[in-house]
């Protein structure tokens, strides 16, 4: 599994020593962590506390992200346990890296146009037909469309490109955190790894990529 490799690398890597939460601490502190890790409902979604479950917004975020990034939700949330009857009632899980929670919180805090809730709603409405999400996002208001681009850039590069900057075709990206940089998806999509962050072994560069970290891609046409 992808996440196993990543977890090992993280545990052994410099960031772990620099104060990242270790797997052991994570398990021991699960009860305490839940309150922090759980995603707070958004003010303008109608789904805050209904039958879809406490993680409905996070699940909507994962479905939205899967559709827009083209990377499977199981890669985005390695500990995801799906509820086959109602995807929004699934348990998104807590993994040692938990980048999805960091991104959700970041987007929520930096969504200057209150578009995030609308994107989540769009994902919820289309949870049975994920292939419709891209055309619907492209057909949405500018604020929503450019936030969607910011979200994909966040997943791909670990950097925040403000929607307004994207609209104006300028760039002053901010790396969200050291961890976000190391979780950028574009590297693995290209068969590589973030520069300065690899868990491969001596000599691998002489051969075609057989990188266990390569993400499972998502293609709605094939599901």
């Amino acid at each position, binding site marked *: 599994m992808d996440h196993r490799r990543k977890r090992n690398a993280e545990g052994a890597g410099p960031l772990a020593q620099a104060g990242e939460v270790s797997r052991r601490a994570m398990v021991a502190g699960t009860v305490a962590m839940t309150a922090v890790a759980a995603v707070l409902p958004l003010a303008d979604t109608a789904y805050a506390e209904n039958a879809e479950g406490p993680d409905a917004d996070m699940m909507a975020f994962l479905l939205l992200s899967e*559709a827009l990034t*083209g990377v499977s939700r199981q890669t985005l949330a390695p500990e995801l346990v799906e509820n086959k009857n109602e995807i929004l009632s699934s348990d998104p899980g807590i993994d040692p890296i938990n980048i999805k929670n960091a991104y959700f919180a970041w987007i929520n805090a930096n969504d200057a146009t209150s578009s995030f809730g609308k994107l989540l709603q769009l994902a919820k409405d289309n949870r049975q037909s994920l292939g419709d999400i891209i055309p619907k996002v492209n057909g949405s208001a500018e604020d929503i469309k450019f936030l969607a681009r910011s979200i994909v850039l966040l997943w791909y590069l670990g950097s925040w490109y403000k929607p307004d900057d994207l609209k104006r075709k300028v760039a002053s990206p901010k790396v969200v955190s*050291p961890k976000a940089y190391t979780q950028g998806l574009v590297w693995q999509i290209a068969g590589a790894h973030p520069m*300065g962050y690899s868990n491969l072994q*001596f000599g691998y*560069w002489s051969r075609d*990529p057989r990188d266990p970290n390569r993400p499972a891609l998502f293609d*709605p046409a094939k599901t």
Partner: protein
Amino acid sequence: MADTCITCDVAIVGSGFAGSLIANQLSKKGIKVVILEAGPGIQPNINDAMARFYAASAKVPESPYPPDLADDPATVRVGRPTALTLSQSTWQNTSVAYLDQNTDDPNRKTRPFKSTYERLAGGTSHWMGLTPRLVPNDFQMKKTYGAGQPDFPFLDWPISYDTVSPWYEKAEAELGVSADADEQRFAGITFSTPNYAYPMPRIPPSLFDQRVGKAVAQLTEAETQFLGTAAPVTGLRVRSLPAARNSQPYRNRRACAGNTSCIPICPIQAKYDATITLNEATNNGVQLIDHAVASELLVENGSISGINYIKYDEKSGSRVDCAIKAKVYVVAANGIETPRLLLMSRNQIATGIANSSDMVGRNLMDHPQYLTWGLLPDPVFPYRGPLVTSAIGDLCDGAFRSQRAAFRISLGNEAWSATVGGTGGDPQTTTLDFINGLNASGLNKKDFTQLADNSALFGVDLTKTLGGLISRQFRIAFAVEQSPDPDNRVTLSSVKDALNLPRPRIAYDISDYTKRGIATAFRMKELIFSKLGAIDFTKVAETDPGKFNVDGIEVPLTYGGAGHIMGTYRMGDDPKTSVVNSWLQSHDHPNLYLVGSGTFPSVGTANPTLTLSALALRTTDKIVDVLPSYQ
């Protein structure tokens, strides 16, 4: 003179490669050594540096290291040049750029000196880790190629390859070099020890190295005539490059895991840096005084009698003026900071210390890099492995050197990370292009994607497009020999740093000889790209302050910095034309040694660290010999 704070046998200014090696060797002999380091000391680990690097928006070579990239250099006590201060709008702006690159001389064209360095314990740890040797003719350019040319700009070294060769072997052991000796026997390279083996086997070639190797294995005489070699070139060999990167565990450091960030920092220290030797030295009893800026060398009866330095506190900003007294003094502060210190000592001697030849600060050289990049017909999966694993070195010497500069061709594994414009280089630039419908990379065009120009993609279209394009990117760089020019010069600026010391002022240009080398590199690029079936994306920005035109080539050419700062206190037998002798001992002051690549009279095309390390080890032996004669 300030109060003497400390006395020792040997005082060393600077704890980079040369300073650390000398300190460590001397300490093994029980000699009392003190190092003055201008910047921060050795950190307990590299975690902070890694975190800074990961979090940096612009992952430039300086990004993991202090001080902060955005600081005004007038407010920084120990400044340094950075890659962010080389654009048209910044390179001559001294409130942004540490180096003052302005000129008062209306007759002199000045171009940006594009190399950077660090000032902290361990010196420039952002080096690439490549350790090729100079070749024999690099030591005797004038003798071999200058016949009948009275204005031939090169000065021969006072020592030959054969003199340096055994010291190369010692340096290769200290740094931990991986290479294959048989593969390195070209352009006259021999080894002093029979059946010499490098400390570790070579680093294996990347997929791109292998691809280029096949593409250039067979060439025709007509295709390579432009090179001007004595014998026709009918094929070229891609050779693994010697590198101070472990190919197996060596001296308690692990093997390279191909993190693809030799520059700016190896996350596992499989790449040698001087902190490794420096730690050994301090364990042996060497005293490293950090946050201690040497400000003046003192002279008494023709000898150096002390060094004034400023000991400052990073947080409070307080400073104490001190002096150190020793028997022998070594300045190991790089090709810009060393002449700066010598010239700052003008209260002692009006022309500066060690400068009776007027050569201190002159003949500043780099290896101007002609950087090219393109797209292959199918993937070679770059952004993997060490940044550079192989090169075409065989064109570094030949009869053409009487007319034009030689070059080595380095094959990059980091593709477009330092080539395309935009924020952060690639893959960031290309990714942004395809998500936001832009084309800064040049790749978002129907020709390459079969999609509409400036497509903005999501989902499977995005993964397929980016995966397909980024895996085909490559870059090739030509490191060109720069000829010495006394007008390329380090002097003192009227602008100061936060310690009120004058910052370095730089005057720099590249000669026609070097430009002809770059022009030939351009033609070589055309040949290699056509053999690879590659699409050329090489572009010189309109705003590049270094760009120039050459007759017969339609596009403008330019150069980048290699980080190789050389020539500014050159060695020679004649005190009238050189600053130090072959022992790197000052002609003027017998107890003063000036070490580092500033001593190179000419620079060939080999990365300088191995050579300066070999020379430093040779100097150490000399110091051990002469030390008993000083009381």
